[in-house]
């Protein structure tokens, strides 16, 4: 039908226009900007230069990058260790409470992580709930200095990003065929072997997806180090925030963003490689 | 003269360099119940979709009511499809589902109400007009799917394996109902199935399709009793195949065959020449077996040993191994009082059939 073709063309035009303008173009501009210079009056000017990438070799930047990498890495690992059993248990539940429990995990996923990070302050500060409880139970004498340290940042990251690890693993575990586990047991595998050789490899796509969803934000959510780590705590996110909004050095900030995007693409390729056997590639 | 409501001439269909349909020539008569029968993957569903307009032929022409419909989209062809999964709109009531096509054609509301009520009466679902599909049983959903298509008064109704999702009993009931419905509606039905029993019991004519080619078109009786090729013979029903040679012919129809070193008289529907190699096909229910002592003149019979006796309730199937290791299946109606049917595994018997009940086919490898 002629009108059908019009409808289809119109829809596709709108979609492609939006995608081009607001998905493709911005990222291209970032790459271009990272290759430009800046001066007092213009945020981005010619000449093109690789200087920004060379500046990445600066020892301060490298230190910050390493620190972000380590903190984000440890947080991701802890999210995995804490979150995997949680996801596994819930995914395999048969009880009628399951949807309710699921809802309780989804709520933190969608609500403001700024608010939730702020809520942590009351718990971990020197006169906070955690310290009061520990002192009251006689476990420690002096309050632990958690707030405004790297530990606070890590707790904040784990607190905010744990749902992002749980949900992909959970969807993956739900699709796990129980018969495979039964077959392994039937052939004589104990629980540990079954877990190591059957369950982990089969849930690897979920693990990778969860790790991507935790690791990248962990490196770049700037308000968590800001409010929980204090003024001294600068991670990659704060660095980029600074470059764009305080130093007004957009090309430098773009260079950082480009590096981040490269890390993202690498992780995605890992995910694609791990799921290469699966025919149905769904969005997480 | 009976009109051809659908005609396919020289239709080919290929997808991704893979030929699905090869040189299809078919005439569908007005008012008939035609079944496209074939195993999975033979192309019968593709053929249906070519007629309905959801696929276009790679070459060849399709005519509906004498008009070439190449390039015409589905809804302009006056044919409608009933899908295997029924595809009822889950958010609409039965009434709205059936009225959908009429609404798209902008038929005035009073007429819609009347036509929908009529067709609901025909499928015996008058009281269900306000229900949603999820509140209906499988059989009822199917009747709604048929009603939805039929209310638009198509020239042909195309049904794509509509009964395959139903359980055995419901299938049997629906087969009878569909046949009656077709007569009541008076619309030509083109029905696709892989179930040969279904095809034989419901159709006016059967089109046997294998590997993209039409093997045979005929009434159920023709297709079953006079298969034109070995493929058709083996696809429909059980069959015993013997290799043979024509020894002599008389007036074209009566021939003398040599099978397994025995000479037998037979009838052929095609012209045969002496010395010609043929395949002889005999249905198990046409095979007769006798105990050795029961027969005096066994010149045209074969000796065999009973290998299996399978009691099936109404029939007893015997698997017999002949002297040259050919396996023959024989089916007899089980008669409680007839001792003759007490065969034991290992017994020696004579195997034969009434001359004329076999079908002689050209030799195929």
């Amino acid at each position: 039908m002629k009108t059908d073709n019009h409808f289809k063309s119109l829809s596709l035009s709108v979609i492609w226009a939006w995608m081009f303008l607001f998905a493709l173009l911005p990222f291209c501009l970032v790459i271009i900007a990272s290759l430009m210079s800046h001066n007092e009056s213009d945020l981005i000017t010619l000449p093109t230069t690789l200087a920004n990438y060379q500046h990445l070799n600066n020892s301060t930047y490298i230190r910050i990058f390493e620190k972000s990498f380590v903190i984000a890495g440890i947080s991701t690992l802890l999210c995995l260790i804490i979150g995997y059993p949680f996801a596994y248990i819930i995914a395999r539940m048969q009880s009628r409470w399951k949807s309710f429990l699921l809802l309780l995990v989804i709520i933190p996923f969608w609500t403001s992580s700024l608010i939730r990070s702020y809520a942590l302050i009351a718990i971990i500060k020197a006169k906070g709930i955690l310290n009061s409880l520990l002192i009251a139970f006689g476990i420690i004498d002096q309050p632990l200095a958690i707030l405004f340290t790297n530990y606070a940042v890590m707790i904040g990251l784990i607190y905010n990003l744990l749902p992002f690890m749980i949900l992909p693993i959970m969807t993956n575990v739900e699709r796990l065929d129980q018969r495979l586990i039964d077959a392994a047991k039937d052939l004589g595998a104990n629980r540990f072997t079954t877990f190591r050789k059957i369950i982990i490899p089969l849930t690897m796509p979920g693990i990778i997806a969860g790790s991507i969803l935790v690791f990248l934000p962990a490196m770049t959510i700037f308000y968590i180090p800001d409010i929980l780590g204090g003024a001294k705590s600068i991670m990659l996110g704060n660095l980029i925030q600074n470059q764009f909004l305080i130093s007004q050095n957009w090309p430098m900030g773009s260079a950082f963003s480009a590096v981040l995007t490269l890390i993202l693409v690498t992780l995605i390729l890992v995910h694609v490689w791990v799921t290469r056997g699966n025919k149905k590639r769904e969005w997480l | 003269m009976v009109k051809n409501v659908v005609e396919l001439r020289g239709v080919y269909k290929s997808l991704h360099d893979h030929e699905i349909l090869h040189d299809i020539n078919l005439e569908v008569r007005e008012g008939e119940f035609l079944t496209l029968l074939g195993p999975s993957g033979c192309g019968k569903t593709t053929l249906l979709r070519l007629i309905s307009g959801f696929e276009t032929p790679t070459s060849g022409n399709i005519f509906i009511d004498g008009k070439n419909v190449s390039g015409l989209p589905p809804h302009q062809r006056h044919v409608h499809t009933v899908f295997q999964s029924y595809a009822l709109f889950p958010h609409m009531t039965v009434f709205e589902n059936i009225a959908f096509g009429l609404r798209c054609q902008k038929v005035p509301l009073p007429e819609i109400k009347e036509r929908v009520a009529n067709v609901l009466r025909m499928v015996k679902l008058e009281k269900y007009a306000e229900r949603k599909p999820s509140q209906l049983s499988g059989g009822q959903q199917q009747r709604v799917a048929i009603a939805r298509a039929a209310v638009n008064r198509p020239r042909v109704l195309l049904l794509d394996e509509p009964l395959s999702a139903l359980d055995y009993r419901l299938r049997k009931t629906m087969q009878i109902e569909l046949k009656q419905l077709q007569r009541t509606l008076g619309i030509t039905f083109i029905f696709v199935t892989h179930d040969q029993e279904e095809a034989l019991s419901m159709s006016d004519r059967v089109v046997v399709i294998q590997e993209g080619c039409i093997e045979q078109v005929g009434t159920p009786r023709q297709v079953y009793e006079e298969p034109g090729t070995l493929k058709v013979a083996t696809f429909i029903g059980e069959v015993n195949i013997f290799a043979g040679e024509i020894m002599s012919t008389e007036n074209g129809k009566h021939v003398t065959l040599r099978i397994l070193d025995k000479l037998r008289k037979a009838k052929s529907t095609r012209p045969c020449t002496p010395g010609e190699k043929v395949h002889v096909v005999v249905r198990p229910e046409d095979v007769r077996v006798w105990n050795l002592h029961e027969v005096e003149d066994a010149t045209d019979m074969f000796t065999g040993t009973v290998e299996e006796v399978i009691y099936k309730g109404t029939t007893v199937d015997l698997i017999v191994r002949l002297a040259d290791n050919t396996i023959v299946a024989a089916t007899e109606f089980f008669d409680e009082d007839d001792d003759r049917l007490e065969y034991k595994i290992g017994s020696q018997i004579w195997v034969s059939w009434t001359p004329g009940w076999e079908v002689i086919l050209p030799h195929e490898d």
Partner: protein
Amino acid sequence: MNTTTLRNSTYLSLIYLFFYIPIIVLIVYSFNNTTFSLVWHGFTWRWYVDLFSDGDLWIATWHSFFLGIASATGATFLGMLTAVSLYRYRFPGRNFLNGLIFILILSPEIVTGAALLILFTFFHLPLGFMSLLLAHICFCIPFVIVTTYSRLISFDKNIFEAAKDLGASDFIIMIRIILPLLSPALFASWLLSFTLSLDDVIISYFVSGPEFQILPLQIYSMVRSGIKPEINALCSVLFCVTVTMVVLAQLALRKKT
């Protein structure tokens, strides 16, 4: 209750407590009649009253709600169009589009924020409501697409062919079949986009201007400068609002047609 179940239940409870205790503490302390101490000094509505008389906050709230409604609507419309087109049509670049959406979901917000900032500057778009609106629609669309598409693939795909067979044009199919069947998913997508917009800090930080104040950025600056009890009340309110939206969205998604 056997030991496995006991162990599992304990583990689950611990994690749930971990999630919710800070929030509960927050809400409880929003009623605490004291400025700084964590000791309970009695129940009070004081901070909520202060909150409601803060004119600046009201403006920011109104701005955020308006922005949220506009972004959610825009994102739901465009996202639905994309999901339906991806589902129904084969077109060149389809796989590329899939990949693009996948990358958008995973992309860190800071990169998206920076990229959009550069984009808007490139087009000389002043930073304010428009830049925020476009940015919010941008990051909400992938979630709408994923939610809507999952709902679409759960339908019997023959339904669309049946509709075409009966004479429906693509437009009619969209209006009479797709939209009604998708309405729970669209409702849920709208609500989820609204909460995403309401809570967004990072991207908004990059693309907002001084003229159009929004709530999350107000909260951020308040938290950094340390004016405490009002924040507790504000956060509690905002939290409860978003929880309501999320619960409604989940109920809608669970509904079968």
